[in-house]
């Protein structure tokens, strides 16, 4: 029996959306308030979905404690209460939620092997969210 388990985590971080490829004016036009030179912040919700067979002995897809540990160590410690623009993950890329969602997926994918990483969903606010599945279509 294959099932999918989703766990939700929280991290708070600041960022400024600004592209070196654009002029000051183009940056202001593209990013609006998000281009404020002093930055601003969000409480991000990170939803991690893993899939796999339900182990008949334990009744679980994987040890949830292990998932919590990997997410805490690799994602929350790295991004929580940080300025995203100062981190190596965003030296080249603009720290939009698209890029943060993709970065979290790429950090977790090789580090959590107990079940298949299906998807990372990132809520920047309760009004918008982003999903990344390694480039695969998402149809569930």
């Amino acid at each position: 029996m294959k099932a999918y388990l989703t766990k939700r985590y929280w991290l708070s971080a600041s960022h400024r959306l600004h592209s070196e490829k654009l002029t000051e004016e183009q940056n202001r036009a593209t990013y609006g308030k998000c281009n404020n030179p002093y930055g601003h912040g969000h409480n991000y919700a990170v939803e991690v979905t893993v899939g796999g067979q339900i182990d008949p002995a334990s009744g679980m897809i994987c040890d949830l404690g292990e998932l919590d540990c990997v997410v805490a160590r690799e994602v929350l410690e790295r991004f929580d209460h940080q300025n995203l623009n100062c981190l190596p993950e965003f030296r080249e890329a603009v720290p939009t939620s698209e890029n943060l969602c993709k970065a979290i997926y790429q950090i977790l994918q090789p580090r959590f092997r107990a079940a298949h990483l299906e998807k990372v969903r990132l809520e920047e606010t309760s009004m918008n969210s982003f999903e990344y599945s390694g480039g695969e279509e998402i149809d569930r």
Partner: protein
Amino acid sequence: MHYKIKYMDSSRAALAQNDTSRVIARSGTRRETSTMIYLTRKCEFSASHYYHSPELSAEENLRLYGKCANLNGHGHNYTLEVTVRGEVDPTNGFVIDLKDLKEIMNREVVETLDHRHLNKEIAEFARRNPTTENIAVYIWRRLEPELKVAKLHRVRVYENHDLFVDFLGEA
């Protein structure tokens, strides 16, 4: 490099606020308007449970299940989301009559599991841990044969706000 990202705006959040939501998926490959509708209804039940594997020692149970291994049990307010899919009936405009879906969910899930101790009162869980994964499979098996007009698409069980399991009937 693969890079496809799905973006949702507030309309999905707004749908999630309601007990019932209808999502329309249009076939992009067929010329005629074949419209598959996905309809989701929510309900809640509260139950107690614990996790225990008899083949493991007390220490191993504690290590594997943590606080959930306490044999006195503990409880949750579960939220169930049932998604069905089908074509819209041209006469009544429904994919399923919501009264019927509500009645099936109440009978098969709420009346069976609400305010129960899952390990002690539900035969399915006498020897099988009532994990969120197994509860989702159990609910699927009860609902699937009852749904005739629209097909069961997904069972989603929230143990709490931050943890849920999806089961789509996959082997």
